[in-house]
């Protein structure tokens, strides 16, 4: 059996849903975008003063029309991420402003070179099924910050992408990029490469841009990922159960807008809820209650049979230290046990304010262990032990058995050099390297072994054309991050 973790019993789950369906009717949900309001109105919702009152029956019809699963594809057209069932994938955290400088251990504003490095490291780690548009690059005008980071990921990576737009005009430009990457809009619909995070503002507010985002993505056939993020105690009820209700209400109302715009369009029940720290006033992503919120919210999505997402594997620590490892590995394990389809957040520190390449490679090890745990214990042989004992008797020479050689690779996960299991003996006179030092070395190795993504000349040309079009609109000279397309020989 595969282990499975659920935090809500059926009684509590029913109460959460009853209250969520009640909330979307009364007090209702703010909907800023006129087109979103129009589709709600024409489907039978009451819309007054920018507030939509959505009947449960309408929301349930929308929940029925949403697909139960879909795939994201890599550049070669292979299925690479399965949104559905209990399959679990991880991607780095996204939209971060700062990068931890591994030399000074201080954060600094992220630049395109940092994003390229992060893409390269992620590309080389199989633990990450998808890339994310991880950094907001300070050397790119903010008007196209979202667009340009997607351009860089498409340029340097072949993996699927978890991304998101910051404004209406750039959303369309980003969809143009994806169409250029796929060849045409039909190909993009058939084999989507990216999913877009779309965030309501808590509580219960689908802003003009967020609602527009939902409608546009649905009609383009580009998967959307609902990222409701109540802060329990500040922008949401202080109780975990109460914030799960708010998350459900925001997600159901967003999904209703999306499905009314285009029934059957791919959508993910995601989120980034957190508790509100009553001492610091922060949103602690490493807090166990934040993890509990994420797991409970995902469980509600799973109850509806929808693909799921959560924001985990991030830490509140400012350094890549024991706190970072503890918080991140704990949530990686719990998220994997909950069967959440896409878990974003790896690499992130300081309550999502800072990214670290070193943390990203360390988190990959925690993810590998979590994935191993999620596979569970299987009966791989006809008898569990008797057959092997019949060969060894009491001598106990299991290392020589054919079964050992045939099965040890699927039974055991083999960590990278990040994890030190060697005996002290060989180096007892030498200073040992700690995890961070080993992570720095691994980052260097991964980057030096990175090969540029296999982009056809036509795709390059199409992507460049759109990039030049958009950058020239904001007066950006050149295309930062593109001259670094080749491996870094000096690293």
């Amino acid at each position, binding site marked *: 059996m595969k282990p499975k973790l659920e935090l809500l019993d059926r009684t509590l789950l029913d109460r959460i849903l009853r209250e969520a369906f009640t909330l979307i009717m009364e007090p209702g949900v703010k909907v800023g975008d006129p087109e979103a309001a129009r589709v709600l109105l024409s489907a039978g919702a009451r819309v007054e003063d920018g507030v939509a009152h959505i009947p449960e029956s309408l929301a349930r019809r929308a929940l029925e029309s949403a697909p139960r699963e879909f795939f994201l594809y890599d550049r070669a057209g292979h299925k690479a991420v399965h949104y559905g069932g209990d399959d679990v994938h991880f991607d780095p955290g996204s939209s971060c402003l700062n990068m931890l400088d591994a030399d000074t251990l201080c954060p600094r504003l992220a630049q395109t070179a940092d994003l390229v490095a992060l893409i390269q490291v992620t590309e080389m780690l199989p633990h990450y099924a998808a890339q994310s548009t991880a950094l907001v690059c300070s050397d790119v005008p903010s008007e196209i910050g979202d667009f340009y980071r997607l351009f860089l990921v498409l340029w340097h990576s072949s993996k699927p992408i978890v991304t998101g737009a910051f404004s209406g005009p750039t959303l369309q430009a980003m969809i143009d990029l994806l169409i250029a990457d796929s060849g045409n809009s039909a190909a993009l619909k058939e084999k989507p490469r990216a999913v877009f995070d779309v965030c309501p503002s808590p509580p219960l507010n689908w802003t003009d841009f967020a609602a527009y985002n939902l409608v546009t993505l649905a009609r383009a056939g580009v998967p959307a990922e609902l990222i409701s993020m109540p802060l329990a105690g500040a922008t949401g009820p202080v109780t975990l159960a109460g914030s799960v209700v708010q998350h459900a209400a925001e997600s159901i109302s967003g999904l209703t807008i999306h499905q009314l715009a285009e029934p059957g369009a791919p959508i993910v029940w995601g989120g980034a809820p957190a508790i509100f720290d009553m001492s610091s006033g922060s949103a602690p992503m490493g807090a166990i209650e934040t993890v509990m919120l994420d797991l409970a919210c995902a469980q509600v999505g799973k109850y509806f049979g929808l693909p799921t997402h959560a924001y985990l594997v991030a830490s509140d620590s400012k350094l890549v230290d024991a706190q970072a490892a503890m918080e991140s590995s704990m949530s990686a394990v719990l998220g994997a046990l909950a069967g959440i389809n896409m878990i974003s957040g790896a690499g992130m520190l300081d309550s999502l304010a800072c990214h670290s390449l070193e943390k990203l490679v360390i988190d990959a090890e925690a993810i590998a262990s979590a994935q191993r745990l999620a596979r569970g214990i299987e009966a791989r042989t006809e008898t569990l032990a008797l057959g092997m004992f019949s060969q060894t008797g009491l001598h*106990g*020479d299991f*290392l*020589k058995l*054919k079964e*050992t*050689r045939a099965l*040890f*690779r699927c039974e055991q996960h*083999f960590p990278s050099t990040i994890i030190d299991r*060697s*005996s*002290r*003996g*060989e*180096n*007892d*006179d030498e200073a040992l390297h700690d995890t961070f030092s080993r992570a720095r070395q691994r980052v260097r190795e991964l980057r030096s072994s990175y090969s540029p993504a296999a982009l056809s000349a036509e795709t390059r040309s199409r992507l460049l054309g759109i990039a030049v079009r958009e950058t020239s609109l904001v007066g950006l000279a050149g295309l930062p991050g593109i001259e670094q397309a080749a491996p870094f020989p000096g690293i």
Partner: protein
Amino acid sequence: MNEPILQAMRQSIIDGAPETALALAQTALTNGLDLLDAIHHGFVPGMHQVGEQFAQHTMFLPDMMASAEAMRAAMQVLEPALKKQGAERPVAGTVVLGTTQGDIHEIGKTLVGTLLTAHGFKVYDLGVDVPSDKFATTALEVGADIVGVSALLTTTMRGQRNVIAAIERQGLRPRVKIVVGGAPVTRRWAEEIGADGYGKDAAAAVTLMKSLMRTRELLPADARAD
């Protein structure tokens, strides 16, 4: 000997395929091929490659054991045939192995023995819970080049010092080299008790013993004389 069959021999060891290795050894025999050539340019380089891959963490202990088993299968055919021809595979070294008195842990020491055999060493495995004097008397009897002393416990690790003392009492030092290993053993401990080397794992122990044999060959003849 033609390269394809040598390559197949190497591969049979890398694959850890005893049946294939045995069949290739028999083919060499049937076709009248140079058996030493088969060993030195066919099977042994396969074992070297396995050692390299183990160091690079692309092969693991069960792979190594399977390769050693394939080597054993091939040598079971080749060694008697060589003897009949009046030839012999040169022995890489003679090693006496055992676990210290009071310690019944076997696996590490046995693994070293298996790999040493696969690399052409003649191994006398005394087993576990071996009195110190037994190491010394056996080393004398068999003309050992190296004595390997294993211990898994910090308490029995001290027995390694006793083995060195016993071998010194027999007057076998410095001709007989002493190698220590086991989970609690460190390089510093090896130096402290006057051992000639320490292997952090079975593969490292084999590399160390090969290196000690090379060093030993450089010793003056009187120091090497039995």
